[in-house]
């Protein structure tokens, strides 16, 4: 008899699961990760790597990921602020790109509307061209830029983000008005890669991890990385080696919903800390060439404020923000 009841119970649960409106649970056994970019990009990779680490480390059992791309993640951020208010089981991925985008776009929704949890990773950008492009080195690219700045269409992440800043800094270093940079913003991932591989834009600029697959497949030619020194294991010269005095890194982290109690915030902090320290996460960092920049809680909150000031200054000096 017992087994029969279990079957009935399970069937009922299944039906209820389909029809039920989800209710927030008490402990963190479910987590909704908002990725405010399209699939395949850096934030998406961060969100999915978190999912893998949490699941295989048995830290959180049920995880759903939602992609909502566009406008430096501010569309996703607005949706997160609207939908997740007071929900202790929801986080949003974000980072320097979002900080820059909020400043450039004068977004009415900002990072002050969410609860900072932790900075997780840092990553350097790489500049690429399609494999069949006549441009072979950074010198060729800069030469074309000098001849006619508008003729170089840069494809990369959101407007005002790290990728956009890097393209503008390169132009500035070459003595070109950075506001003349012809920058085509993509909400990250597949779309941007397709545009670059297909030769629809001249050059691509984004995080190493976003282009790595296509670089290894021989479809994209890397011209330079934005780090100070060469990245171990990656045989691509830096910008500085090629006479361009520019160095820039991107960081990514996670934020929680507004209106959480101290206990709920603490719960999330512990969950993320456990994940960041897990073996799976550390392996992911190595595999993706991400730098471990773990910084949590109030320290991270202060860091975000300092980043707003720093990126705001750069964006203003480049003429990208007023």
């Amino acid at each position, binding site marked *: 008899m017992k087994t029969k009841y279990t079957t009935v119970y399970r069937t009922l649960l299944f039906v209820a699961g389909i029809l039920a*409106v989800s209710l927030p649970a008490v402990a963190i056994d479910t987590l909704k990760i908002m990725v405010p970019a399209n*699939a395949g990009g850096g934030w998406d990779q961060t969100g999915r790597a978190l999912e893998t680490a949490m699941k295989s480390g048995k830290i959180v059992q049920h995880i759903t990921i939602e*992609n909502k791309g566009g406008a430096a993640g501010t*569309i996703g951020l607005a*949706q997160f602020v*609207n939908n997740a208010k007071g929900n202790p089981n929801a986080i949003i991925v974000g980072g320097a790109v979002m900080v820059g985008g909020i400043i450039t776009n004068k977004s009415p929704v900002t990072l002050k509307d969410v609860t900072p949890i932790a900075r997780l990773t840092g990553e350097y950008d790489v500049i690429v061209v399609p494999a069949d492009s006549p441009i072979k080195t950074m010198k060729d690219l800069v030469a074309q830029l000098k001849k006619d700045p508008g003729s170089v*269409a840069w494809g990369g992440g959101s407007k005002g983000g790290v990728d956009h800043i890097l393209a503008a800094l390169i132009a500035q270093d070459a003595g070109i008005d950075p506001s003349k940079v012809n920058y*085509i913003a993509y909400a990250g991932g*597949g779309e941007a890669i397709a*545009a670059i591989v297909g030769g629809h834009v001249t050059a691509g600029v984004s995080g190493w991890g976003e282009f790595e697959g296509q670089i290894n497949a021989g479809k994209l030619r890397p011209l330079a990385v934005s780090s100070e020194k060469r990245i171990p294991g990656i045989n691509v010269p830096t910008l500085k080696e090629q006479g361009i005095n520019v160095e820039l890194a991107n960081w990514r982290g996670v934020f929680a919903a507004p209106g959480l109690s101290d206990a709920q915030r603490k719960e999330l902090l512990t969950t993320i800390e456990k994940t960041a320290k897990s073996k799976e996460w550390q392996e992911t960092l190595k595999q993706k060439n991400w730098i471990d920049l773990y910084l949590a809680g109030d320290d991270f909150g202060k860091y975000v404020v300092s980043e707003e000031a720093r990126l705001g200054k750069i964006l203003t000096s480049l003429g990208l923000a007023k």
Partner: protein
Amino acid sequence: METLASLISGFAIALTLQNLGLGLLGVLLGTAVGVLPGIGPGLAIALLLPATSHFDATGALIMFAGVYYGAMYGGSTTSILLNTPGESASIATAIEGNMMAKNGRAGPALATSAIGSFVAGTIGIVLLTVMAPLVVDIAIKFGPAEYFAVMVLAFITISALLGNSRVRGLVSLCLGIFVGLIGFDRQSGQARFTFGIPQLFDGIDVVVVAVGLFAVGEALYMATYLNRVGDNLQKMKGSIWMSKQDWKRSWKPWLRGTALGFPFGALPAGGAEIPTFLSYAIEKKLSKHPEEFGKGAIEGVAGPEAANNASVTGSITMLLTLGLPVSVTAAIVLVAFTQYGLQPGPLLFQNNPSLVWGLIASMYIGNVLLLILNLPLVGIWVKLLRIPRPLLYAGILVFATLGTYGIRNDWFDLLLLYIIGVVGFFMRRYDFPVAPTIVGMILGPLAEQNLRRALSISRGDFSIFVTKPICATILAIIILVLIAPPLWRFIESRRPARRRK
């Protein structure tokens, strides 16, 4: 070979217990809504959208695909037994099918339509399987200019050609594009038409609009106008099975119907009406028993039903490969894609191979499930027709309201839902098609984004749209699609003598 490997991995995904269950649930629900007159697959999927927001994308889409072709099977059941085709695509089936039912041959009519649908559906999916990988190679050739052209093609197709009136279609489309523009601009992040209301910053959820237009609008319309329907249900008499003679007279029409249906379904503006009627006309001409037509000829059921189902697969092919929604239901499936942050288009195969191949594999399985389910269960489906309409539509309203509130537990969405529902009621009342609104809302912002990117790349030079071969071809198709039907009518009107013999 690569295709075969992809397909096998697709079966591995589709055959998991969860996805198999969802597929089964989808075809059951689909058949049920197909049987109920007035509830099409569009409405059914719109209602399910909020409830599935917690599923993973693959499972949900497998279920929706099941609803889609389940509804096609179910629709033929009502056409045959009730002479009330749920969709325009089933009208041709109803002509002969209902006559057969009146002659006490409902069983063979239902059987030939079910088996014909199975044959057509399966051939269609094989074609999709073969064609899909070709699209992947085209994918990277699609830049912003090409995407913009495809989206304009989608706009023209769905608004100017699917309905009866171009002006109404275009008005509906523009309404959709306007609603789609509400919220942050995806390129620059500027807030547009938000009136400072924070709930509007991330735009209006397309699910709310779909549920409002399809479910609430439809329920209000039914409550106001359709409480005086007289049904005359044909009883099932005699054997359900087809005789040897029936088989012999059915198999050729099935194949001919498939050959007509798939290309028309895939064609922008092709739809299912033209191939079903074409099939009917061809079968009448080729039949050895032309005298039976109008009195219950089995060929007249077999051909159009196959054409109907093949066109469904054709339109799914276009949706998966190019992101072109060529029918109302495809427009709703497009909503499902957007809900999961997926962009249908050439890149879907590259970015989400497991989803696409899982979906394709589930379509094979779904067709088999439908065949097994439908032949013996016809009697049960017919019982559904006894549900009183007021109860049915009240239930739909409750479900729509609960589901919408469930998306983010915000009363603001309910307000929007009912405002949109009232708009949907008036659109229905004055014969404005609602599908263009949905398509405009989803593709409008994407078209804008790609137009801006294309012009940024070309530095403001509009010739980018005609100098690129793919783009120019698509634009040529758009012009052809716009001028061909009126031109055709003109030519036809010039030679009335030959037509009438």
